[in-house]
């Protein structure tokens, strides 16, 4: 009998990650072959996903350091430290369309209550079953929800993961100067932690470069969102999520990301100039106030567009009220990064603090984007948001737009099926007199 070496184990843990990389690769090829219209923007995005995966795979193969973390944990710092990183939540997001996901979701029931957020339930399951690449260090995300924190506690008792050094910045509940100072201090501790455990040093000049590049991206993102105010809206449901993916996940502070945004703005500008909308006859402008579920992208959103001329004009992840980061000093950079992580990054911004943040966004988006209806998908993990439905309904009433609460699982189609969601939309549109088919 041969015993598995550490290296073998790491390679085994990479198996699903490699599968994922391969499916992105196939997608990148397909997009690359038939570039047309807005679709051509998918190709560089999927290529970047492949490259992000490859960087982690290479790190495993060469025994180099890499980090497991999230977009809400100041990834600009990992980039500046030249540390490859991957999102610990990868399993549900990137496997959203995988046929085996339902089985994995079911298997988690032997561990946790099935009311525990599916995203972290599956991620936790992968930890317990040793199915995820074991990083050199973990930067845990303690905001915005309980599930995220709980999933990281789990690592403390896992035979394998508990040996991986872990740090989390403590998120204050407020957005004021005192909170940002406190968080900047936590960030300094995080940097020391990363330096100690990865052997990499953070060079502040390099961090400045990364942030400046990222600022360029955010400027373009803001410009892009201005273009989405146009009637008809030039792009549909998936683009906001892509913009988020580029700026905050896969091309953080990377000139390739800036180029991607430049192309995006160009494309949108052209369409707005021509008066071309995502659909020919735009009749309903939707604010989808959560992440656009990948599972629904294949069916629900195209159906809404075709059947009702209903376009997702804005969504939680595409919405960027970003303040650019002041790069004058270490102090201003760390505070700026903290603000981005706590008060700007989607979902963190709305879900971490008091509900006023939440309500404020609805007001702003409905007004700025000429929204006809607000949809709260009500992912079963987003409890703090689902405890706001009364407030959301009231602010919508005040603004004169109808509000719909679905109640679904972003990752498990069986919770509320697409057919059921379609039915809800049909009834909703009918009763609100929003869009007659045809």
């Amino acid at each position, binding site marked *: 009998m041969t015993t598995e070496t550490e290296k073998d184990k790491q390679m085994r843990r990479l198996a699903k990650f490699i599968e994922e990389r391969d499916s992105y690769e196939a997608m990148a090829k397909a997009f690359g072959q038939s570039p047309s219209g807005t679709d051509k923007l998918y190709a560089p995005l999927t290529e970047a996903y492949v490259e992000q995966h490859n960087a982690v795979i290479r790190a495993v193969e060469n025994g180099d350091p890499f980090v497991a973390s999230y977009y809400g944990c100041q990834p600009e710092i990992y980039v500046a430290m030249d540390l490859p990183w991957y999102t610990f939540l990868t399993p549900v997001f990137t496997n959203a369309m995988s046929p085996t996901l339902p089985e994995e979701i079911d298997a988690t029931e032997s*561990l*946790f*209550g099935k*009311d*525990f*957020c599916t995203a*972290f339930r599956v991620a*936790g399951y992968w930890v317990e079953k040793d199915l995820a690449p074991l990083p050199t260090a973990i930067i*845990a995300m*303690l905001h915005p*929800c*309980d*599930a995220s*924190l*709980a*999933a*990281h*506690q*789990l690592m*403390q*008792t896992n035979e394998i993961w508990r040996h991986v050094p*872990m740090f*989390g910045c*403590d*998120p*204050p*509940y*407020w957005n004021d100067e*005192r*909170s940002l100072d*406190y968080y900047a*201090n*936590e960030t300094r*501790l995080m940097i020391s932690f990363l330096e100690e455990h990865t052997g990499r040093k953070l060079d502040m000049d390099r961090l400045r470069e990364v942030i400046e590049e990222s600022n360029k991206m955010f400027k373009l993102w803001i410009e892009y969102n201005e273009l989405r105010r146009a009637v008809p809206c030039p792009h549909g449901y998936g683009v906001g999520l892509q913009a988020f993916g580029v700026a905050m996940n896969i091309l953080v502070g990377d000139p390739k990301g800036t180029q991607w945004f430049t192309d995006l703005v160009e494309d949108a500008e052209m369409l707005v100039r021509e008066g071309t909308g995502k659909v020919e006859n735009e009749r309903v402008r939707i604010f989808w106030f959560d992440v656009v579920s990948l599972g629904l992208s294949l069916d629900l959103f195209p159906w809404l567009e075709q059947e009702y001329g209903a376009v997702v004009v804005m969504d939680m992840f595409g919405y960027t009220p970003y303040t650019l980061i002041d790069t004058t000093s270490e102090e201003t950079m760390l505070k700026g990064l903290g603000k981005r992580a706590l008060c700007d990054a989607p979902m963190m911004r709305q*879900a971490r*603090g*008091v*509900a*006023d943040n939440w309500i404020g966004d609805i007001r702003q988006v409905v007004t700025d984007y000429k929204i006809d209806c607000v949809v709260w998908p*009500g992912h*079963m*993990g987003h*409890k*703090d948001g*689902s*405890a*706001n*439905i*009364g*407030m959301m309904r009231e602010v919508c009433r005040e603004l004169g737009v109808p509000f719909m*609460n679905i*109640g679904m699982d972003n990752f498990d189609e069986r919770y509320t099926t697409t057919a059921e969601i379609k039915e809800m939309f049909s009834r909703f549109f009918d009763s609100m007199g929003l869009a007659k088919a045809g």
Partner: protein
Amino acid sequence: METKVKSKALQQFQEAAETLVNPELKKWMEQGGKVMALFCSCGPEEIITAAGMVPFRARGTGSTGTELADAYMASIICSFTRHSLNMGLRGDYDFIEGAVWLNTCDHCRRIYDNWKRKVDTPFVHIMSLPKKTEKPQVAWYRDELVILKEAVEKHLGITITDDKLREAIKTHNETRRLLKQLYELRKRDNPPITGADALAVVVASTAMPRERFNEMLKELLQDLKEVEGIKDYRARLMITGGILDDPNYIKVIEDQGGLVVTDMLCFGTRIFWNDVDEKIGDPLQALAQYYIADRYSCPRMFQDYPRRAALVRDMIRDFKVDAIIGERLLFCDIWTVEHYQLGKEFRPEGIPYMQLDREYILGGIGQMKTRVQAFLETLGR
């Protein structure tokens, strides 16, 4: 299973656990006293006492439905949250002068947002509770205590002096020490008090003027001195979990023969197992140190699991625990993971661990009985 003692104090405690406003609290209010509700046990009771009010740990006791709250919160919100908001909306909490929340969990922190808009309570406040237990967090929480103190002072037009705070710390520490004495008795082979009654005592400790409570608890401790302990049990159990405040829930377990001898609950050891350090000169620093670092945390505190597990391990040894029941309110993310972890840790050590999910208002008793019976059988009892 019953506590075999005739004790007036115990009766009063039982009554306090069964009602929202108990006679002692009523008396206090009739004399012009004010009450301030706290929605999490990480909230600083001592500041409220020092302000001359009674800190009252919010509960949903007596709630019969969530129909009003359901317009504001979806059904995936834990039922404690929905019941207590419902009671606020119905006016059942009109007796309070104010309420303090912390960003406890995703459910409970939203009661504040809804309450602030929909319930007419003169003073509402929310504190930012850190999620870690280290020095910077103690310092942060001390500032939060200052903010709360100043807000209360402004609201009531009073000054909360350091001496008042020290006095309050002493009183609350005495409550903690007395509760610990009560628990010491439960270490015996034949504990003089059931788990259900012990829970009633702890619940009462969060719902009446503390000096009065301390006197009453001293009486009860006296009454329990000569009592014949409980012998007719099949197993000694520990309960772990969050906001369990209903003695009837424990009674169902004890009626099956499992005597609950200790716990790790919000209405249990976590709120009194250690004291606020009276030797620290600055009382606010002492409180911050206690609430963030010294007190046994709940699973919303990051990287503190080992300390909680150590507490459970000590309890198993000191209270001769045979098995553990982990209670959880449905939809609570933090406790489902904690129970999984505790189960994984203690089962291999020969301590069976059962997770019982429940709704806040006791129901489904038949099913619960069956599960508890089956659990006790697996223990061979």
